[in-house]
């Protein structure tokens, strides 16, 4: 099966700093990679390169056979959840999600937006201005915004940030559902149990490079955390 998401020698320099340094990997439909690494390892930069928000200094990011940058159709196949919510505080939850739905050319954008908010358990607050919502609720709206167009590739940067236990459970179940439906995912997280729960592959990133990648199936989380500590020299968050 051809990969849905593929990076080849992906490199990004900021001045002399190699934020991402020759990263190569491929994910087929339904595969998901949990990306672990200390602050400054280059995880967010890698996500922004894959989303087409940054221009690579060298190498390429390919989504469904086309370059991630420059091809508008390809951008439409990507869903991005970032550190920030990417929401407009002066718009309501529904208006924010519907705006994204319209930009992606979703049929029946109002209905699709309501369904996405419902899926994230926040439909009751659809008419609330985003600035009046708590951080956790804003994160739920942000996730609804990212999935409203049913992306084939989902790039998630610390998606559990701000979510309470029920929000985290909703997100995990939704990620499993999307994976079963064939979406490829790259999940950046510091939390080993949350990351491994939704991933098929676990990767440690250090100094802009992939230091290790292994299959999650049959993996011992405690053993992985120990290996991470040995590689990165820091502890992982356990839960």
């Amino acid at each position, binding site marked *: 099966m051809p990969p849905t998401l593929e990076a080849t020698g992906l490199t990004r320099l900021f001045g002399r700093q190699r934020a991402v340094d020759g990263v190569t990997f491929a994910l087929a439909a339904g595969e998901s990679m949990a990306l672990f690494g200390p602050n400054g390892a280059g995880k967010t930069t890698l996500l922004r390169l894959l989303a*087409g*928000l940054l221009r690579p200094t060298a190498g390429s990011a390919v989504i469904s056979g086309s370059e991630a940058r420059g091809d508008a159709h390809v951008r*439409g196949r990507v869903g*991005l959840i970032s550190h*920030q919510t990417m929401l407009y*505080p002066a718009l309501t939850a529904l208006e924010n999600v519907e*705006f994204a739905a319209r930009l992606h*050319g979703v049929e029946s954008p109002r209905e699709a937006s309501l369904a996405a908010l419902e899926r994230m358990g926040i439909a009751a607050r659809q008419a609330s201005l985003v600035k009046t919502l708590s951080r956790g609720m804003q994160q739920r709206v942000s996730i609804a915004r990212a999935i409203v167009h049913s992306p084939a590739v989902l790039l998630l940067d610390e998606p559990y940030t701000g979510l309470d236990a029920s929000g985290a459970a909703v997100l995990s179940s939704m990620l499993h559902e999307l994976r079963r439906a064939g979406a490829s995912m790259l999940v950046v997280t510091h939390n080993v149990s949350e990351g491994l729960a939704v991933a098929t592959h676990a990767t440690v990133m250090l100094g802009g490079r992939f230091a290790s990648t292994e299959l999650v199936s049959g993996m011992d989380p405690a053993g992985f955390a120990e290996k991470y500590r040995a590689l990165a020299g820091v502890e992982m968050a356990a839960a």
Partner: protein
Amino acid sequence: MRPSLIQATWIVARKDLLIEWRTRTAFISAVVFSMLGLAVFYFAWSPTAVSPADLAPGVVWVVFTLAAILAVQRSFSIELLERAGDGLLVSPVDREAIYLGKAIANIIFVGAIQLVTVPVAALFYGLPFGEVVPVMLGIGALATVGLVAVGTLFASMAVNTRMAELLLPLLSLPFFLPIVMAAGQSTQRLVAGRPMSESISWLKMLVAFDLVFIVACTLAFPYTIEE
């Protein structure tokens, strides 16, 4: 199916206008700024040296130019908060649609400021209201297109810099100059009751600048948002 250029332009413009309608902070600030500008110039000049009617066209264009800078600055600063602009950039819409949508919202925004300010300027400077207001609004509409076309492009470049508030006027004002000159000259002649034939060449120049700036800035915009 991804939206066409026109559809995407409207989606972006509508969102920007809705945000401004909800907050109204930039509109109120720009209108208050314009009123204060008109008042300051009125009292700073001696009416015995220059009549208010002769002074008004120049003053109005100085005030509109600075109000336009306030307006366009706002259009990209709303994208910085929570990095909402990333949502625009990862969407499948053409980059040109983002620029055009923001420019259209800015034209409506600056036009609304002029709608409030021009009648006040006419009253304040004792201009013949019925004759002057339609003329100034007409020229204002033409000039606004050019000012916004340039300002929107430079606002997108300046917004990510640490000195955005300073950089935007520094970049924009040299390009605003030909527009303000043509608008000021044509307004001066028409307010003074001179025949239209005396202003026509300035108005043609204004239209030419509008067309050049719209095309050039639309084509340049995708490169200004590259990281």
